[in-house]
């Protein structure tokens, strides 16, 4: 016969199980968007794709000037050249990415049920290369950045369409892990992603204003003026983790891929506008 304490334990375990099973990504996204709409009622939803330039008028003016002669234009030329290369077996990248003529950036990251993990655009490119007999590219190397910049450019205007199927527990678990990462404080400064990019949006960190988490993934890879080159979204994640004085995870680690899965799902409906230019 189960004792009262056993019954209590069963109720607690059942509640924990149900709360995990009943995770609702769509409800999360609606709440996330509603939070920013309430915080910045004058900013239209589509503007969040422009990151901090949706909020900081002075910085926006400078950015619009920079975009007149985009600093990533040479990278786009390189990317187009790489995209059209033929693999040793006669195939091309287009054979791996169905519908790539009109852009595929908006569909990544996705959950790969065969590999049982989140597949980002970068890992998909390397899976494609490996399938056709080529070595993978470095995740923040020039070739990878050029290819992803080209693929983002071709996808401009397509609304982000990340799927987190509630019928696929492993996808849901990856999404939940990314969500946990986003809201977890870490590092010597004890900050979470959300501390800056949800609750402190628009406030200053030194001379910079903090951007909204909504829309973060739409414009990567970006050209960063202070670095004089392109960086990937995961390189930016790594920089943020370092900034709070925590040891960063590797680029394309499970942790960062899950984080990208969650964060990009939050931006569903915003248009792809990469590659971008930032300070």
């Amino acid at each position, binding site marked *: 016969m189960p004792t009262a304490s056993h019954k209590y334990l069963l109720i607690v375990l059942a509640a924990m199980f149900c709360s995990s099973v009943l995770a609702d990504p769509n*409800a*999360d996204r*609606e*709440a*996330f968007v*509603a*939070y920013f709409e309430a915080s910045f009622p004058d900013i239209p939803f589509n503007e969040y794709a422009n990151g901090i330039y949706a909020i900081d008028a002075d910085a926006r003016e400078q950015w619009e000037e920079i975009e007149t002669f985009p600093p990533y234009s040479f990278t786009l030329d390189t990317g187009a050249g790489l995209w059209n290369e033929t693999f040793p077996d006669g195939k091309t990248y287009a054979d791996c990415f169905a519908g790539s003529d009109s852009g595929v950036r908006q569909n990544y990251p996705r959950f790969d049920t065969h590999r049982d993990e989140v597949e980002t655009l970068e890992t998909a490119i390397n899976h494609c290369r490996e399938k056709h007999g080529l070595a993978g590219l470095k995740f923040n190397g020039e070739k990878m950045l050029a290819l992803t910049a080209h693929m983002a450019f071709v996808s401009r205007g397509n609304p982000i369409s990340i799927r987190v199927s509630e019928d696929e527990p492993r996808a849901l*678990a990856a999404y939940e892990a990314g*969500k*946990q990462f986003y*809201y*977890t*404080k*870490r*590092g*010597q400064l*004890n900050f*979470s992603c*959300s*501390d800056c990019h*949800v609750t402190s949006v628009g406030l200053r960190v030194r001379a910079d204003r903090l951007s909204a988490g909504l829309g973060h993934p739409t414009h990567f890879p970006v050209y960063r003026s202070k670095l004089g080159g392109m960086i990937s979204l995961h390189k930016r994640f790594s920089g943020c983790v*370092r900034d709070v*004085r*925590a*040891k960063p*995870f590797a680029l394309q680690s499970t*942790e960062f891929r899950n984080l990208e899965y969650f964060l990009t799902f939050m931006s569903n409906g915003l248009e792809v506008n990469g590659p971008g230019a930032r300070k």
Partner: protein
Amino acid sequence: MRRVLLLSSMFYVIQVAAEDGAGCRAPNEASKAPDSAMTNYKQSHARAECFRLAAAGAGAEWLKTEELLQQSVEEALQGNWDSADQLVQRAQFQAETALLQAQHESEAWKHRVVKK
């Protein structure tokens, strides 16, 4: 199931390291003999490294902990035992605090999720 096992092992490491340090603390007190400085340092370093690895295993390692340990080794190699020991103590403090942070955040993050 793999995730459950991973979480269980993580919490075990956190419990062991953060609650009583049984997995990392040296069993004996440091010797007071002057010629045992190196032995004492090695024990301190191993203990701090154990905590650092536990923090890393929990995905919670701080940025400079490993660097502090490396600096302490450099000091020890030059025979600067006091300086080496101070650096080890700082590293261990960071690693233990990182573990406590991870333990606290394993639940606390849920209260920050944006809700309607």
